[in-house]
């Protein structure tokens, strides 16, 4: 911590005459910066740790067993799978469908609930907030134990049994959608809540009601556009969750969701597994950056 000696030298531009302090944050740095060597060491090590595996994995996927560079691992991803096996696109589309269903159901459930809380039922907010946080306390593995316990309790025959059989069908695994809505709830609640708090919903609603708008118009043409960023954020959180969820899907014996499909690829094709991982990471990263850019632009618009 005794870095005072080189601290000033390392940040010479901070020494000249103290300007009017527009940025309060700056003022701390006028004193000899404590440990900029330490800082760069930390940043470098972190950079190597976080970027290293990505580069290593990419180079691994491009390795040709006979030497040289080969894109065969990536070509194999999209190759037609042997009959009876699931292909990359099938798995991806399957997960995409689950993701879309999850997003729709989550928004249908949470958006009206949270608007109602804000507009009419402030008293209930605390209770609802605590409930939405509960899924964080019960890990997916725990929830899935409970769900399979419920399934085994239901007797063959009755209407409940046909209902559970229906939602467990491999073609439309509604049970996964239902559980993912719960898993996404803590994040979706916070994202929507931030959006709803940032607009003056009550005034907007009263103004549009006074101008003769019906409730549907208020919801679809006044509130939803104002909450666009929050809704997109929430949707993306659901999307990321579903595309990466392995625990529940695999324990309930679904083999088509993307992560489960990825895990069950034959280990002999380690190159393909790594290639798919890199590919899916880049896909998710690109989407996240897109969302980030969207938020950033909106924030800039508001400021400007």
């Amino acid at each position, binding site marked *: 911590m005794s870095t005072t000696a080189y601290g000033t030298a390392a940040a010479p531009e901070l020494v000249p005459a103290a300007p009017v302090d527009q940025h309060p944050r700056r003022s701390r740095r006028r004193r000899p910066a404590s440990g900029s060597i330490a800082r760069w060491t930390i940043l470098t090590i972190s950079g190597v740790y976080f970027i290293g595996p990505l580069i290593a994995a990419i180079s*691994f996927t491009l390795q040709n067993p006979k030497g040289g560079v080969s894109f065969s691992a990536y070509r194999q991803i999209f190759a037609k799978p042997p009959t009876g096996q699931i292909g990359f696109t099938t798995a991806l589309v399957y997960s995409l469908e689950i993701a879309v269903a999850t997003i729709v159901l989550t928004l249908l459930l949470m958006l009206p609930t949270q608007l109602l809380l804000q507009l009419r039922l402030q008293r209930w907010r605390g209770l609802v907030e605590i409930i939405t946080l509960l899924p964080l306390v019960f890990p997916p593995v725990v929830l899935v134990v409970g769900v399979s316990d419920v399934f085994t309790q239901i007797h063959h025959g009755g209407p409940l049994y046909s209902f559970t059989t229906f939602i467990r069908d491999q073609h439309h695994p509604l049970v996964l959608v239902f559980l993912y809505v719960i898993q996404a709830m803590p994040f979706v609640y916070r994202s929507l809540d931030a959006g709803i708090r940032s607009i003056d919903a009550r005034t907007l609603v009263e103004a549009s009601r006074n101008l003769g708008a019906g409730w549907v118009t208020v919801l679809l043409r006044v509130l939803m556009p104002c909450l666009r960023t929050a809704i997109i954020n929430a949707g993306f959180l659901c999307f990321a969750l579903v595309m990466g969820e392995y625990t529940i899907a695999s324990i309930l014996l679904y083999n088509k969701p993307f992560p489960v499909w990825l895990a069950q690829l034959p280990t002999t094709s380690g190159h393909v597994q790594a290639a798919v991982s890199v590919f899916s990471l880049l896909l998710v990263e690109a989407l996240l950056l897109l969302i980030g850019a969207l938020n950033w632009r909106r924030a800039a618009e508001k400021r400007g």
Partner: protein
Amino acid sequence: METTVEPQPPAEESKSSGAGSARLRRPDLSVLGLAPFFIYVLVVFILPIAFILYNAFRKTTVGKSVRDPITQQFKRTSSTSFTGSNVADSLKGIYRTSLITSVKLSLLVAVLGAVVGILLAYAVANSKSTLLRQVVTAASAVTANFGGVPLAFLFLATIGNAGALTTFLNGHLGFSLQNDGHFQLSAMSGIAVVYLYFLIPLMVLVMMPALEGLKPQWGEAAENLGASRWDYWRLVAGPVLLPNFLGSVLLLFCSSFSAYATAYAINSSFPIVTIRISSVLSGNVLSGQENLGAALALDMIVIVLPLTVIYQLLQRRTSRWLE
């Protein structure tokens, strides 16, 4: 069933809007609008969790076949009794080992992740470059969500047995990670390295706002009063950040304690409790231990629940200073 949803008599609600006061004087039905949410949570979440509590203490013993004296058919009697034996079993033998391994691993990565994470967050929060701050925050948001199977394969391709770094070290430097470095991806140290990949960014994400909330004026005031840099950290910044830091350690602990996919994809027989539960659920148990999964799940709840409550309390305490 809906006792929790019982609407309460509307009290001071009607004052809020002048225009619609005639409408609001009627019993307020808007509470019913919360019914879908409560019913959904009740059925999809509370019910399964309640079943865990119920099953964890229940044992079904199947009796001998008995011939019914009248119909002459064989009947198997089964009786259900409430017992603590499931939970007792879940704390013995391989299950006990798995719980201990889970706790050890989570403690290790929580402490390591928290320390490295706060150093990184501090380095970034105090840097001159806003670009660096934005890039690190954005990258942390991506990486903190990047767990599970793809992450496992990323590390298998890097430092697995045939990974790029492993073969490189072996081929060019004659260094074997396993023999010379005593490092194996499928062992605890390996799993820890992989977990840190998403835990450190998580720590950065939760600590960054706190570090940025440290007011420069506090430092200046401390300095004017004659405090050294160390005094400032020990007496001002440290105590302000401490609840947040401890809370984050708990968050990291819970997050790695509940993780399953990452470890499973690297080593499907790694002895942690989540993997043990999944093997119980797929039928790998002795007869009479069918409810062991519920008991193990209960063990997990008992560990995670108090930590989460403490975490929430610590967060509340933090926000008082760092708003």
